[in-house]
């Protein structure tokens, strides 16, 4: 529900990408858009849902029909795999997932191994590196050199993916001067050398939230789920409100949203 790079994901839908593998620790609407468009074949994730609104319907149907493979991890097992990649370690150990059926899903591929520490006899899960081609993260502000800031600095899980990925694309609510970073350097989230491309995307997380600028948009979630009553209704909704508009500005207009905010998206607390 928080700060998903929706403008980037919409573009993947719009240009008709196919066969993507999506790695997401916790996600919802962005994966459902890709599943609805037939753009994703493999999801590597900890949790895909619309949270209080219910299941992500196209993700769900895609997996149930066999069109989408869900490689399920727990959040922390996935984080540990990303950390192993970021740190170039053969594995990262954790107690997460012990006693559950999750590690066994990944025994054959060798991605996770349940092992026993020789010195203590304690069990742990060895999480091997997970290679990620491109990280895409949404931020509040970025400069043209690639310095980027989440405001306030609430990066939670995004930095794990950025550190693990080969390349990083940032979408930003606003492009600002480098002087803005120099003035408050402790607020910078990603340094320019971690960022390969920057793209301005005002309200770029809609309909998810971008705290404290705007909250997630209850209305969009409700309309989206209501449209799932029939394939026709959803096809019309998806074309009109998601995939059809030519530009991001057109998309926002189709959803009655102003780029500058203050238009009905719920305010963050």
């Amino acid at each position: 529900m928080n700060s998903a790079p929706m403008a980037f994901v919409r573009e993947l839908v719009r240009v008709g990408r196919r066969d993507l593998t999506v790695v997401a620790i916790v996600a919802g609407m962005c994966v459902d858009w890709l599943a609805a468009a037939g753009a994703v074949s493999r999801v590597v994730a900890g949790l895909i849902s619309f949270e209080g609104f219910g299941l992500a319907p196209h993700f769900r149907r895609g997996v149930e029909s066999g069109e989408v493979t869900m490689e399920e991890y727990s959040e922390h097992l996935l984080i540990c795999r990303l950390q192993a990649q970021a740190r170039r370690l053969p594995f990262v150990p954790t107690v997460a997932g012990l006693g559950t059926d999750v590690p066994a899903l990944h025994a054959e591929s060798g991605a996770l191994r349940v092992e026993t520490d020789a010195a203590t006899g304690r069990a742990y899960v060895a999480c091997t590196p997970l290679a990620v081609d491109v990280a895409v993260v949404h931020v509040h502000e970025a400069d043209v050199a690639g310095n980027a800031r989440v405001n306030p600095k609430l990066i939670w899980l995004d930095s794990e993916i950025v550190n693990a990925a080969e390349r990083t694309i940032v979408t930003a609510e606003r492009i600002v001067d480098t002087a803005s970073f120099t003035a408050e350097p402790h607020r910078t989230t990603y340094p320019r050398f971690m960022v390969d491309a920057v793209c301005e995307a005002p309200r770029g997380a809609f309909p998810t939230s971008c705290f404290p600028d705007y909250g997630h948009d209850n209305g969009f979630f409700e309309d989206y789920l209501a449209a799932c009553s029939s394939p026709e209704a959803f096809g019309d909704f998806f074309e009109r409100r998601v995939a059809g508009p030519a530009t991001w500005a057109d998309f926002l207009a189709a959803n009655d949203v102003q780029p500058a905010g203050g238009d009905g998206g719920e305010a963050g607390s």
Partner: protein
Amino acid sequence: MSGAAPAVPGYGCTIDELMVVTFSRAMANDTRAFNGAVSFIPVCAYRLARRTHAPDLVWAASSIAVDADPDVVGSSTLSDELWGGASMLANSPFDFWAYAQGARYNTFAFRGAQMDAYGNVNNSVIGPYDNPKIRLPGGGGMADLGCMIPRIYLWSTTHDPRTFVDRLDFRSGVGWGDGGDHRASLGMPGGPQLCITNMCVFDFEPTSKRMRLASLHPGVSVADVQAATGFEVLLPGGEVPATAHPSAEELRLLRTEVDPTGARLREF
């Protein structure tokens, strides 16, 4: 998602209110809790406990906003809507996992689409993993936090045989594992303490670690619970007590301060 909850006969409250109050009373003053997705009942319980008998209770809203005290509970328990009044936005996942693994956070609540007698949960698939009848969201942090947190609480607003099953289709999160000393043998602290449902409260029999009826909500019989439960329900010695009555003050706080807009009804 948002529905209505049935009235509790003779208690002057509805079942959501009884569940929140019961959960709240189980919280000790040294509770240090956080919450995940769709956790309206626990969130209300933490907020209520802090206003009544547990003033020092720590609750990190969405696992991020320590000591939050928002005006209302919104449409998502992971949302920044919950962060108002917090004294810390604990934004580092490194610190969060250290707090969780070191049991600085000591309390976590989860529910699953399926739960078994040992308090293990399934939120991944109904049916075979590779060919599921229903693809659920996934275990998320349950598989992690179930292993790390010593005081685990389960709840369910849908006490029926589809939810309380003899055998999970997939174990997304661990409670007492295979029972007995299985959890301890994996080096995990504590384990599930209670399971609070819309029919009753279970605790866990100390040796087998199986769910055992601790109290019945008004109007519910032992036979009702057994009929709604897919595994054999253990009974305590003697009569099964009725779940304690919420106080007028608890109900007032819940209705006017803790959750005035009734977000908790999203679970019904």
